[in-house]
């Protein structure tokens, strides 16, 4: 007997002989009753033993789960039926009554009944709710081996060693037990003894049919789940199929094949199959309709005793001499292949269908594969050839066969393949448009075949090859049990090898750069050259995988969809209620095939892995997008970020002040840290903040921390270090109030206040010290006073040698006014991006200087925050001084007040806020921050020469403030003119920028046109440059205006170029002079021709054309003049030029030739170099101005743009920003 390749063992246990098996209807559990008296509860999915129940004495043969309750029942050779709770893990009660071994026990599917069959020749029905015997069926005259309820009707079937199978009608019993009765115990006893007829003549259970046909005892019998069929297995080695109608039952056929006692049989729950097992160590599968053997599975040494089917899924279990095996009859993985937006797959009906991912529609059947292999074996793999629209299908039947079939253009119903090519092989895949590879595992040969099925080459793969997969163009991935080889078909050799155990599937990424090797519990990601990138282990079996477009691998296990990044970071995407096979991920949709080969779409939330991917790729824009658009908050992401070293990003997600504080400290974000410290206001936090701030050199925050902590000594020293004498003086006063002399002394020393020190010494009666201090500082009067006070004379005092008096250094720089250059916190680009302050997000575009900028900005930012913070901090500040205030007498109360008021000092002006509130250069200019504005412009459009922008800068600056006269005698109050009129939040206000886009278009532009028309080109060129400068430093109100601005820039730029050409021509000299110089004349004609090239408004173009035409005509270049005339005519428009052109055309056509050859090809497309005023033909290399787009020959690179006169030619920038 050959073991069928289709039977797949999922679980095996080792134990003594298994006599009974029961599947849990929902959970992956199986109960096994053993000959050794033990009952085991296994999780067959995890392969773990959940529990053991040992109360029976001797072998346990019958076992069954209740369908809904957490109960099971067992029956043993101790004559006992036991009902157990698997929750409380104990036997609930025992039903006694049988007088011999119990063979089977079963729950009824809805009534609280248990059916048992026993060697005492009876079949009994028990009510497990009131724990009573309700029916005893007698009639068999040998051991009753098996008895089962019908799944729907009131029938029982039983098998006995008396060679008969009996069908019992128990409808009477149901009637009696569903009717309300009040029967006494005596009545019940009486009825039982009445030979099963009750007082009304009804019988609880009557034999309906007796089926005779087995020649030996019958071991098992089973009803078909839906049809009126019965299968039985007997010691005559036969499996018999019976049919019954309302009135009779008869034998249909016999399945012959077992060569030892047949022990068990059952109907396949979903397919037309019968399964049986026997002491001949085989499990056999029979075709229900033909009664022929379909498959058989042989075990080496164990006899099978029992077989059971899972009620729902395609799973069976068989008990044998040494345990239990759980198995599937066939692979459920549908064969499939994807190409672009199409999925091709083979249905359970063995037809090929396709599914469109975009339209979400299934195609009709494209092809029927019924004839391929045996009818009960579905194909294993499918390989699709898009060039030929054909599929290559592998079926495991007959030791492996492949079939090459062309798909019809559009399917309509089951289409039998017209032409197929077959052969034997275990694995077959397309390797090229017209080649496929076939592996034959038994002969260990790989054949490369062409489409007419002829072998073109053939080679021996590495030993033990089990499977082959596509390995990239011209390559195969050859799978052996311990390794994967990358095999070059042309060279016939293995080019790379990676040892991975048990690879079963290979999934290529969409870009073909990576492949995932799936084995039972591992995913290994490799590059296309078979270098391992990462690997991960799953305890649950991995079923399938597919790649996201962004390079994230999604894989499914039995119960989850998970993801892994290339670096091995993985996580759960969602749970699954049933196993699916992933085929494609698109956006939030995961497409998969379920076990019945139906396409399904699962919704997933890709946020988490997208975010992690963006993090790995440092794609801040994407991260920003994700953060802003999804609620990606949670401990897991925070700890992930922290773990990965991105505390500053984690900071963005956290609300909890303590965590925020920790993270802020970790990434050195002092602003946030101090905000949180304010909120938490506990010494512990202030201490940490102070330490961190000190290491940053941010002494302002250090000061606040010390104030909060009332660390007077440290505070004094800080003031000394920062040279803040006024505050030191205040510290001295506070010390005085506190009566802390040490502190007072210290402050006096810091301040260099000798008198105070002397005074203090006197106060505490340390006259010697006071005297010495006075003496050493040459304060003779004071000395005298002390001497008088102590009643001593100078002679009585012995003085040590006195050195030079100490005096503290005077501060040179008022460090206390601002922070030192602080240590750059790890404020990421990302964080800046969140604040909308970074221009171009892509890192590589930013030169190092820009990174510096960011730090500058960051410093600005922190300054702003600090000011902002202090504004609100006044009250707390006072609170921080609480202790001092208590000690200070009431009269002096004002002092503290004053202190707190000017602790903030003057605030930042609104103009300073503008620069912080906006990333636009114009707003920085309005705020008077010219330097940062220049940096912005330089970064955005490569501005290098700012002098021409000066009027614009000053214009904006002048428009930013008004002067409100207030109190007489004082300068007027300055107010700041805003464009955000309704805004009062200081963080949102923005300045008014004069000459907005509308003004430019309606005023400046028209003036420019006017000067063009009136031929005032010098003025005109300045007006258009002015427009360019005005746009360069400006702000607009929306994206649509940005587009408008771009148009205006382009247009103004063309005018500047055009006017520049004409002005250059005029500079050649007066007409007469030019006429005398042939070179100048040629140049003059060229320039007049080029003048017509820039894309200016049509009426203006007509002017340039007329001028050029005129020039050409005067100098007898009739051909050129003709072409200009033609262009004038083509442009159409006003009458005057048309008339002239017509006239000119008529004249020139008489003699269409040029007297002077000029460099102007009227037919070619070209642009004019704005510097040299010569053509740049398409194909020539050129440079551009990043702002106005004017073109230059490459040699001008690095110079200043001739058009805007601001930007550097060829310098790239992040693009002009006009709208935040």
């Amino acid at each position, binding site marked *: 007997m050959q073991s069928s390749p289709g039977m797949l063992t999922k679980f095996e246990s080792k134990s003594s002989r298994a006599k009974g098996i029961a599947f849990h209807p929902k959970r992956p559990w199986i109960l096994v009753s053993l000959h050794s008296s033990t009952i085991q509860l296994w999780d067959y999915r995890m392969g773990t033993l959940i529990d053991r129940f040992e109360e029976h004495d001797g072998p346990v043969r019958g076992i069954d789960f209740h369908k809904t309750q957490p109960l099971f029942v067992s029956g043993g050779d101790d004559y006992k039926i036991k009902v157990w709770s698997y929750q409380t893990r104990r036997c609930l009660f025992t039903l006694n009554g049988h007088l011999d071994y119990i063979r089977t026990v079963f729950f009824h599917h809805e009534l609280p009944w248990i059916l048992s069959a026993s060697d005492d020749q009876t079949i009994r029905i028990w009510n497990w709710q009131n724990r009573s015997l309700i029916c005893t069926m007698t009639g068999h005259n040998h051991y009753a081996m098996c008895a089962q309820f019908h799944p729907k009707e009131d029938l029982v079937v039983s098998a006995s060693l008396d060679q008969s199978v009996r069908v019992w009608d128990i409808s009477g019993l149901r009637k009696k037990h569903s009717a309300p009765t009040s029967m006494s115990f005596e009545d019940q006893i009486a009825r039982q003894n009445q030979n099963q007829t009750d007082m009304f003549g009804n019988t609880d259970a009557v034999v309906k049919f007796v089926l005779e046909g087995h020649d030996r005892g019958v071991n098992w019998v089973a009803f078909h789940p839906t049809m009126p069929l019965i299968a039985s297995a007997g010691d005559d080695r036969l499996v018999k199929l019976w049919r019954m109608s309302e009135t009779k039952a008869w034998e249909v056929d016999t399945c012959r094949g077992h060569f030892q006692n047949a022990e068990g049989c059952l109907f396949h729950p979903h397919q037309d199959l019968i399964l049986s097992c026997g002491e001949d160590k085989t499990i056999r599968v029979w075709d229900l309709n033909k009664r022929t053997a379909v498959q058989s599975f042989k075990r080496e040494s164990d006899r099978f005793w029992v077989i059971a089917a899972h009620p729902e899924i395609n799973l069976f279990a068989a008990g044998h001499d040494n345990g239990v095996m759980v198995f599937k009859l066939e692979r459920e993985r549908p064969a499939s292949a994807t190409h672009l937006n199409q999925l091709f797959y083979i249905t359970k009906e063995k037809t090929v269908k396709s599914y469109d991912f975009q339209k979400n529609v299934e195609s009709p059947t494209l092809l029927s594969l019924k004839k391929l292999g045996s009818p009960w074996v579905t194909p294993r793999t499918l390989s699709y050839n898009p060039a030929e629209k054909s599929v290559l299908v592998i079926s495991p039947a007959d030791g492996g066969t492949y079939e090459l079939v062309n798909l019809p253009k559009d399917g309509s119903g089951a289409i039998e393949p017209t032409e197929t090519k077959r052969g034997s092989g275990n694995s077959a895949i397309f390797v090229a448009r017209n080649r496929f590879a076939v592996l034959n595992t038994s002969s260990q040969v790989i054949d490369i075949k062409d489409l007419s099925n002829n072998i073109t080459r053939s080679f021996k793969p590495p030993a033990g090859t089990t499977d082959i997969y596509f390995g990239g163009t011209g390559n195969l991935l050859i799978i052996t049990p311990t390794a994967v080889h990358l095999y070059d078909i042309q060279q016939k050799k293995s080019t790379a090898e990676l040892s991975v155990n048990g690879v079963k599937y290979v999934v290529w990424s969409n870009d073909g750069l990576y492949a995932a090797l799936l084995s039972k519990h591992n995913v290994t990601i490799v590059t296309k050259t078979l270098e391992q990138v990462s690997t991960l282990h799953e305890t649950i079996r991995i079923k399938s995988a597919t790649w996201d477009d962004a390079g994230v691998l999604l894989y499914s296990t039995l119960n989850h969809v998970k993801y892994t990044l290339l670096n091995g970071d993985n996580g759960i995407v969602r749970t699954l209620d049933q196993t699916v096979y992933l085929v494609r991920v698109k956006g939030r949709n995961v497409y998969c095939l379920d076990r019945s080969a139906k396409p399904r779409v699962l919704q997933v939330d890709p946020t988490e892995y997208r975010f992690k991917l963006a993090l790995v790729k440092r794609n801040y824009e994407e991260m920003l997008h994700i953060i802003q658009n999804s609620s990606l908050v949670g401990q897991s992401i925070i700890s992930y970020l922290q773990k990965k070293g991105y505390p500053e990003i984690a900071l963005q997600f956290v609300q909890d002040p303590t965590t925020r504080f920790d993270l802020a400290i970790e990434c050195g974000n002092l602003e946030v840290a101090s905000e949180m410290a304010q909120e938490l206001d506990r010494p512990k936090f202030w201490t940490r903040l102070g330490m961190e701030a000190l290491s940053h050199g941010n002494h302002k925050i250090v000061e606040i921390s010390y104030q909060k902590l009332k660390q007077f000594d440290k505070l004094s020293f800080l003031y000394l270090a920062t040279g803040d004498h006024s505050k030191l003086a205040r510290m001295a006063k506070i010390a005085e109030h506190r009566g802390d002399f040490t502190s007072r002394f210290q402050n006096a020393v810091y301040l260099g206040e000798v008198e105070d020190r002397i005074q203090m010494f006197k106060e505490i009666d340390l006259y010697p010290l006071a005297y010495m201090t006075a003496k050493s500082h040459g304060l003779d009067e004071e000395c005298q006073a002390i001497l008088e006070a102590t009643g001593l004379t100078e002679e009585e005092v012995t003085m040590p040698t006195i050195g030079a008096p100490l005096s503290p250094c005077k501060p040179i720089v008022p460090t206390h006014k601002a922070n030192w250059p602080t240590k750059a916190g790890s404020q990421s680009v990302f964080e800046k991006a969140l604040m909308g302050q970074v221009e171009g997000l892509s890192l590589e575009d930013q030169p190092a200087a820009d990174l510096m900028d960011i730090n500058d900005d960051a410093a600005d930012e922190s300054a702003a925050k600090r000011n902002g913070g202090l*504004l609100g901090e006044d009250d707390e500040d006072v609170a921080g001084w609480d202790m001092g205030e208590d000690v200070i007498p009431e009269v002096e109360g*004002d002092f503290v007040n*004053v202190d707190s*008021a*000017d602790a903030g*000092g*003057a*605030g930042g*002006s*609104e103009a300073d806020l503008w620069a912080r509130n906006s990333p636009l250069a114009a707003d920085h200019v309005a705020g*008077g921050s*010219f*330097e940062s504005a*220049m940096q912005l412009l*330089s970064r955005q459009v490569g501005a*290098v*020469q*700012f*002098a021409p922008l*000066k009027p614009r*800068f*000053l*214009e904006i*600056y*002048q*428009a930013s*403030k*008004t*002067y*409100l*006269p*207030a*109190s*007489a*005698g*004082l*300068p*007027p*109050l*300055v*107010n*700041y*003119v*805003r464009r*955000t*009129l*309704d*805004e*009062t939040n200081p963080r949102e206000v923005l300045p008014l920028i*004069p*000459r907005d886009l509308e003004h430019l278009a309606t*005023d400046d532009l028209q003036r420019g046109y006017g000067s063009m028309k009136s031929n005032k080109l010098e003025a005109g060129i300045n007006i258009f440059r002015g427009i360019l400068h005005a746009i360069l430093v400006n702000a607009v109100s929306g994206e649509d205006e940005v587009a408008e601005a771009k148009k205006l820039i382009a247009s103004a730029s063309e005018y500047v170029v055009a006017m520049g050409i004409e002005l250059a021509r005029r500079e050649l000299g007066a007409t007469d002079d030019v006429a005398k110089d042939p070179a100048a004349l040629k140049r003059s004609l060229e320039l007049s021709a080029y003048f017509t090239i820039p894309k200016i408004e049509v009426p203006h173009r007509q002017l340039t054309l007329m001028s050029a035409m005129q020039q050409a005509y005067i100098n007898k270049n009739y051909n050129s003049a003709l072409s200009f005339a033609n262009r004038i005519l083509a442009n159409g428009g006003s009458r005057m030029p048309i008339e002239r052109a017509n006239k000119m055309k008529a004249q020139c056509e008489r003699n269409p030739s040029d007297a002077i050859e000029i460099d102007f090809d009227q037919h070619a497309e070209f642009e004019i170099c704005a510097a040299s005023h010569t053509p740049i033909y398409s194909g020539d290399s050129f440079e551009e101005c990043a702002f106005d787009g004017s073109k230059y020959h490459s040699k*001008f*690179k*690095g*110079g*200043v743009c*001739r058009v805007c006169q601001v930007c550097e*030619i060829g*310098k790239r920038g992040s693009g002009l920003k006009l709208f935040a």
Partner: protein
Amino acid sequence: MDPYSAEGELINIHNHFHQGQFQEVVDFDTSSFSSENALPAKVLQLRARIALGQAEDVLAEVKGKSEPELEIVGALAELTLGKTDSAVKTAEKLASSAPENVTVQVVGGIVLQASGKPDEALALLSQHQGSLDAVALIVQIQISQNRTDLALKEVTGARRWAQDSLLVNLAESWVGLRVGGEKYQQAFYVFEELAQAPATSSAWSLVSQAVCELHLGRTEEAQAALEQALQKDPENSAAIANLLVLAVVSGQDPKEWTEKLQKVEPQHQLLADLEEKSELFDKAATKYKAKVSA
């Protein structure tokens, strides 16, 4: 009775002063005033004369007078004449000798603030006992220090005890112009009321009204108000400065006004500021240059 209350003798002259109607203050008939109000009225008149540019006359008039009120007014006159050092000296002296004198507080506060000592000015002013002049001055100083928050606190505090006083309204409007949003319109109402009533209208109130309108984006109305102000006082530097700003805001060439301002008040802060920024620009611009010089 509070002499500044609605029934008090000083109310009108005081209001005239704060509405910028300095000539009316000078011409005010103070002969009927009670003796204790004579001096404050005199001080107001002297201050008005200083505002009208007669600082030298005032200085001569108060010379040798020993009343701290007149002495401090002398300091104000000196300040206006550019003798800052001596003015500050006087003010500081009086601040320590007569810090509870309200005139010393207010005028001294002005002198100190104008000479760049806002902290001392505030310290002096904070000793006031319910003087609205002092409150208004404190507000102005705080605004000029960009402490709108504190100014707002001050105004709100004053409003509690002096609800409908002109000075509180004015001070509130000043703060409002910093806060923005709806406050622009509220400030506008206050100034418009003053500017449009013939009895209270002055170049000063017209300029204030115009400034509000400019902030509200109503450039044409602002233009009209400023021109009206110039008719009243052709040399009003505040009007000229704001006209300059307005010209720039509406996209016109401000040259005319720049020149005029230079003539009227060459040391106006707008000009000084512009000068400074122009230098800043030139300095900042030198950091950049093209790789290839043209």
